[in-house]
């Protein structure tokens, strides 16, 4: 891709052909306020907050505007400022003012653009406030859907479509009644949603928010233990407790994506009934044992069961390498071809 240079507010910015103005700005560390844009998704151009002026005459949306060599962009033109300010003020005037108790507080894109645009109480008082009062959809066990906070950026819809190919949600109704909805507006748990939570992590406000989320004090890089894919995870830890899981965007396997188990199924880690040692049945009851004790017992029993009376059933949760070892062990050590796999149901 050929390199181009454009000017944003007087600064010469390098970019590659095919980039949008917003991408070029972000790549150079410049902030153009935006709400409906997400680097993983195709630009939608709906929030109109990333508005800029192009070559001193045309109002354009920077997330959809392809860069051109020699292009001159202004993000502070008076017309741009006015459109951006009205748009953000309109969003805030229709948004619940519950920031301190909101899950997204401090990590909210609406707060960020509002702060950047410079919203004052005095300005806001001129508006007629109107906040929806739609019951929160709490049907999903892992996250809640609060339509009253929704700014209809459509990131969740595009995530479900472009990244997950599930299409559990879409726009419904029209005008101010527009809403992100499942088919026939059923509770999300009754829709075809697979609860992967990809939309939840991308929601710029807290319209989609994980249930009972806690802010971690530190992060620990790890690998998800659920299956053989080996997705990279960042475990959020507080004290000795895992309180959150995020996909590791640097991991080449999943690039930040996770499934419902990897993202939300972490509470077993600190569960009081979780097994932490092997159990051996002695006199009819299971008793805690050491790993050496358990492995010795297994080795002893396996030694007496060689040949076709032995069969091994491997798990899909382990890696390919481990599965290879099991079949090798079964054939070479146990002397049988009775080997199968739980995923072949």
């Amino acid at each position, binding site marked *: 891709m050929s390199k181009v240079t454009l000017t944003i507010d007087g600064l010469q910015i390098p970019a590659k052909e095919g980039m949008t103005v917003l991408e070029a700005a972000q790549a150079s560390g410049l902030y153009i306020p935006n709400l409906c844009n997400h680097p993983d998704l195709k630009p939608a151009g709906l929030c109109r907050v990333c508005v800029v002026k192009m070559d001193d005459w045309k109002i354009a949306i920077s997330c959809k*505007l392809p860069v051109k060599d020699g292009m001159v962009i202004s993000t502070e033109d008076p017309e741009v400022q006015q459109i951006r300010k*009205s748009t953000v003020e309109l969003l805030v005037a229709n948004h619940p003012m519950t920031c301190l108790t909101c899950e997204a507080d401090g990590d909210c894109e609406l707060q960020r653009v509002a702060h950047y645009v410079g919203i004052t109480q005095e300005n806001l008082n001129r508006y007629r406030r109107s906040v929806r009062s739609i019951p929160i959809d709490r049907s999903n066990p892992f996250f809640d859907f609060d339509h009253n906070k929704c700014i209809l950026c459509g990131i969740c819809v595009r995530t479900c479509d472009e990244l997950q190919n599930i299409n559990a949600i879409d726009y419904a*109704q029209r005008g101010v009644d527009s809403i992100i909805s499942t088919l026939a507006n059923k509770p999300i748990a009754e829709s075809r949603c697979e609860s992967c939570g990809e939309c939840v992590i991308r929601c710029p406000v807290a319209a989609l928010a994980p249930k009972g989320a806690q802010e971690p004090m530190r992060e620990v890089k790890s690998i998800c233990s659920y299956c053989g894919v080996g997705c990279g995870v960042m475990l959020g830890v507080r004290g000795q407790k895992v309180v959150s899981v995020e996909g590791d965007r640097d991991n080449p396997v999943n690039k930040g994506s996770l499934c419902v188990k990897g993202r939300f199924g972490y509470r077993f880690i600190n569960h009081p009934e979780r097994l932490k040692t092997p159990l051996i049945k002695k006199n009819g009851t299971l008793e805690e044992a050491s790993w050496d004790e358990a492995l010795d017992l297994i080795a002893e029993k396996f030694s007496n069961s060689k040949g076709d009376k032995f069969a091994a059933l491997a798990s899909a949760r382990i890696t390919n390498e481990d599965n290879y070892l099991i079949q090798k062990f079964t054939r070479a050590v146990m002397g049988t071809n009775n080997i199968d796999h739980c995923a072949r149901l």
Partner: protein
Amino acid sequence: MMNFTEIQEQARQEWDSLQSGSVPVIAVGTATCGRSAGALGVVQAFEEEMSEKGVEAHIVEVGCIGPCYAEPLVNITKPGRATVAYKNVTKKMVTEIVDNYLKGDDPLPHYTLGSFGEGTVENIPRILDTPSFKPQERRVFRNCGVIDPTNINHYIANEGYNGLSKALTMTQSEVVEEMKKSGLRGRGGGGFPAGRKWEAGLNAEGDQKYVVCNADEGDPGAFMDRAVIEGDPHSVLEGMIIAGYAIGADTGYIYVRAEYPLAIRRLERAIEQAHEKGFLGNNILGTDFSFDINIFPGAGAFVCGESTALTLSIEGKRGMPRVAPRPRTTEQGLYDKPTLLNNVKTFSSAPMIITRGAEWFASIGTEKSTGTAIFALTGKVNNCGLIEVPMGITLREIIYDIGGGVADGGRFKAVQTGGPSGGCLPESLLDTPIDYDSLDEAGSIMGSGGMVVMDEKTCMVDVARYFLDFTEIESCGQCVPCRLGTKQLLDILKDICAGKGKKGDIDLLIELSQSVHGGSVCGLGQTAANPVLTTIRYFRDEFEAHINDKCCPAKVCKPLISFRILEDKCAGCTLCAKSCPVNAISGEKKEVHVIDQGLCVQCGVCMEKCPKKFSAVECLSPKLPVAPKETTEVVA
């Protein structure tokens, strides 16, 4: 199959035998507008009367004739005489007309609008000489009200399919060139040069191309597309077929409102007939060109009149306009294929341009806006209806000559053009010529052609509120400025009308209007604030009166008005008290009556009922103070 000359010959014979036969022809306007005024009952009455009295005549059901105020309209042509147009025909009048004019020779002049066509009829003025009709030029409406829209031969006999036959002997570029030369601009409201669009369609690369006709007429008060389809469906089909030939498309779609059932039926019938005659289908008129047309009934969203939302809707998707920058529809339209999308009237104009030539078309109108414009003239005007006038005519000529002036002798206040996206223009702009650019400059638009005349009894704040109420509901909701901006504008306007306007509201309305205009994705949002901006621009004093003085100068906004009975005029007739729906009026017979301001709901019935000779009820704004309720102390 017959060749075109034979088809024409046969059609002309049928038409001529009807026109110059020995029996009278009775043409009844039975488009949707005529039907709602009772035209079908009139047809039935003629049939019954004639069979009962042994009178022979041909009854032809024709499309919309134009003057809505005179519906149901009946045009009667007796052999060798001019056509007499009867207005507001009732069943009782039918009996009289049959007895006096069909059986006898008295045309009953008091029932007529006038006469037209060859010859004269005694005591009846020529319609086309009247100020109401003289400035009109019926081109798109050339066949509406003249031919039977369900009879393809009527259309063919009136130059129909001549344009197609001629176009097929031309090259594609020649057809496009003729369209460009005509200067025809898109009649859907945007005014983009049609020829250039056709050229882009021709030049677009692709094996599959589409022609789409936008018949999703959604503006409140606009019904000209319906009239054209119902009255002359073949003209639209012919235009589309010519367009298909010009750009190399083989399939056409007509996206028509499902709320236009008669129009859809007329189109279905016309498509069937065009197939039978070989104007649609494979190898049209023996050439290599094949084309077919499908009808797609719209699902009722105003925004689907926007081209990209319309094509998405045909694809079965949610009708939301695509966000710019995006490819033009001529490059990527329906199913992402090159698509030529024009309005009903644009297509209907194409056959005339090809048949009579671009120069003929451009011979009327202005340099930059050629041809005619169609308006649905309505509101407080004497002669409402559909009018077709040369571009460049002034608003004053339309309202005072064609429209016959403001209704009930009222005083003109404003005219709203272009539907909900248009603007309100004051008296000082009445000499503005009607063309795309002049209207744009004045802050309004040509739009779909709605034209609402308002008198001094109209509150301009209330008008702005009314139109915003429409756009707010019809916003698709995808972009923030339109979705929330129209709502905010509406909420502020509602407050102002309710006397809850705040200082600074006018500035906020202007500021938001500009942002909604500059920030919205599509034309709906970009023009939604026009009614607000123009009413503030030209009638700012009314906004200020509402906000600062809590006064509605036009005495329309109920929360700002009061009714009062004048002591020196009230004769105590009790009519007002008897008709008050909330029993707010008290007073003995032959004594002065009083309205309890605390109970009054400002319905105005008392003012209506008060006999003219007394005129004892007056309407006031700002409101009268409400007397505090007397409290009675209850002693236990």
